[in-house]
């Protein structure tokens, strides 16, 4: 279904290259020196709090905004100067956009297919996105989730080499969200490069090969999801209910400890494997039993909070 008749010779050039990108609006710097490169066939995530500059960054990639400084290349082309050629290979799903209210789903698919030199067949695409029953429905009558699915279809209809998806699954119910993730994985499996803006950690963890965490217009970290978790100070979380009270001073000196939390007699510590070993030794020394002992890896959520928090501290210092 994807990339029909597309033959591509492998090359080393990144599909998307962003170098020292800067953009400000009315004196307010929104993107402040962002750099990253997305390799062919990769699902690359951009993660960050609201207002971090994620959308502005991808809008520069899509050619919707002209950077103040820095360089953006999509398949080696400048999205602003070479807009027509970039638009032919780049499919975009925008965070906020609509279609003509009285345009039907089928007409929208046919219209957008007509813009591209070798579009996908819209019928199987509509089927895959669960839009077949809605083909004659006007855009204005679609639910939020249906609109979102139509925009995903429109991002893919041109048979693109790169898709940029901004807030991919916002507005979708959990079921449709999972279906969409599977779809994006299929799209990638066919060799399409995906740039994904999200604030859903679960989505980023499931889909992305690499993630750039953007905070206050800068790349705070760039790594694989597992790498980001490992990197954060509290990569491992230990929680237990001690059979006897533990002295906080004993806890405070634990090696590589990132945080301590007491709640309803339960202690939650975050740190590394070293912290785990030290806690067990400590408990054994005091002959304290750890009830309901749990040792889990931190989630991307924890890593994300840690990374964006660290940035705030630096700025305050």
């Amino acid at each position: 279904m994807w990339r029909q008749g597309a033959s591509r010779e492998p090359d080393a050039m990144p599909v998307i290259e962003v170098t020292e990108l800067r953009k400000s609006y009315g004196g307010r710097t929104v993107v402040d020196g962002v750099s990253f490169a997305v390799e062919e066939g990769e699902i690359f995530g951009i993660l960050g709090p609201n207002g971090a500059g994620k959308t502005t960054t991808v809008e520069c990639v899509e050619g919707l905004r002209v950077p103040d400084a820095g360089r953006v290349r999509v398949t080696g082309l400048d999205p602003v100067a070479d807009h027509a050629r970039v638009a032919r290979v780049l499919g975009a799903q925008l965070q906020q956009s609509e279609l003509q209210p009285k345009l039907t789903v089928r007409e929208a698919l046919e219209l957008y297919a007509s813009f591209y030199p070798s579009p996908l067949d819209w019928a199987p695409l509509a089927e895959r996105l669960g839009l077949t029953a809605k083909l004659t429905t006007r855009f204005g009558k679609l639910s939020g989730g249906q609109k979102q699915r139509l925009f995903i279809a429109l991002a893919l209809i041109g048979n693109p080499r790169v898709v940029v998806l901004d807030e991919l699954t916002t507005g979708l119910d959990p079921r449709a969200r999972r279906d969409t993730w599977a779809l994006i994985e299929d799209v990638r499996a066919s060799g399409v490069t995906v740039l994904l803006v999200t604030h859903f950690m679960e989505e980023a963890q499931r889909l992305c090969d690499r993630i750039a965490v953007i905070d206050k217009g800068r790349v705070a970290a760039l790594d694989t999801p597992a790498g980001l978790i490992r990197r954060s100070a509290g990569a491992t979380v230990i929680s237990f209910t001690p059979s006897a009270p533990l002295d906080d001073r004993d806890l405070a000196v634990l090696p590589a400890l990132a945080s301590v939390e007491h709640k309803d007699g339960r202690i939650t510590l975050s740190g590394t494997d070293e912290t785990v070993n030290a806690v067990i030794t400590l408990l054994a020394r005091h002959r304290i039993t750890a009830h309901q002992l749990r040792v889990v890896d931190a989630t991307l959520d924890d890593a994300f909070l840690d990374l964006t928090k660290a940035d705030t501290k630096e700025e305050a210092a």
Partner: protein
Amino acid sequence: MSTAVLKTEVRLFRREPGAIFWILLFPTLLLVILGSIPSFRDHQADLGGLRTIDVYVPVAVLLGMIVGGLQAMPQTLTGYRERGILRRMATTPVRPSALLSAQMAVYGGAALVSALLALAVGRLGFGVRLPQQPLGYVLALLLAVLAALALGSVVAALSRTTKIAGAIGSAVFFPSMFCAGVWAPVQSMPHLLARIVGCTPFGAAAQALNQAAAGHWPGWSHLGVLVVWILLLTGAASRWFRWE
């Protein structure tokens, strides 16, 4: 211009009963109502021997383009911008300007159809003579359509929201209708007022159409006024229009 976009916009226009009525049917309907008043079918000395119905045909011809160009088109375009439809189009190989030109073609085309309808009903229903100088009439008609579209584009350029477009559109709409002669045809206006009205796009258009209808080549001063307005308004629209 993309034919697929144009086809889509034509199709969408057909789904707007309000626009179809006010642009295509209302001007002719007004003509029929006025023509049904017996005294309007009498020859009037102060109209140079013409009947009131005769001078209202050019008014009806202009009415469709004023409604389409000043009321309907700016609202649609501003809505397209407000809803991010232009932005979505900007990420495709077809630029959002394709939507702009398709809109102009749709409303320009509708205004011409409306004009033809008014001429046909005037001829068949009330025996109003067809323009005696057809070439001059067509030229004046096309310039008037361009002026209406250019003025509408300026309204769309200056309006951030559809509400504002509606307000500015109406503010320009009534003076335009007055100049076109909806309340009093240009021929029956006092001389000085007619001179002033003749400097406005629709006043100039009304006078050019009247001349061509009577068999004269439309005055170059009227055509010139139209051309100047088209150039000024197009320049203003392209300078101020924002895609988002």
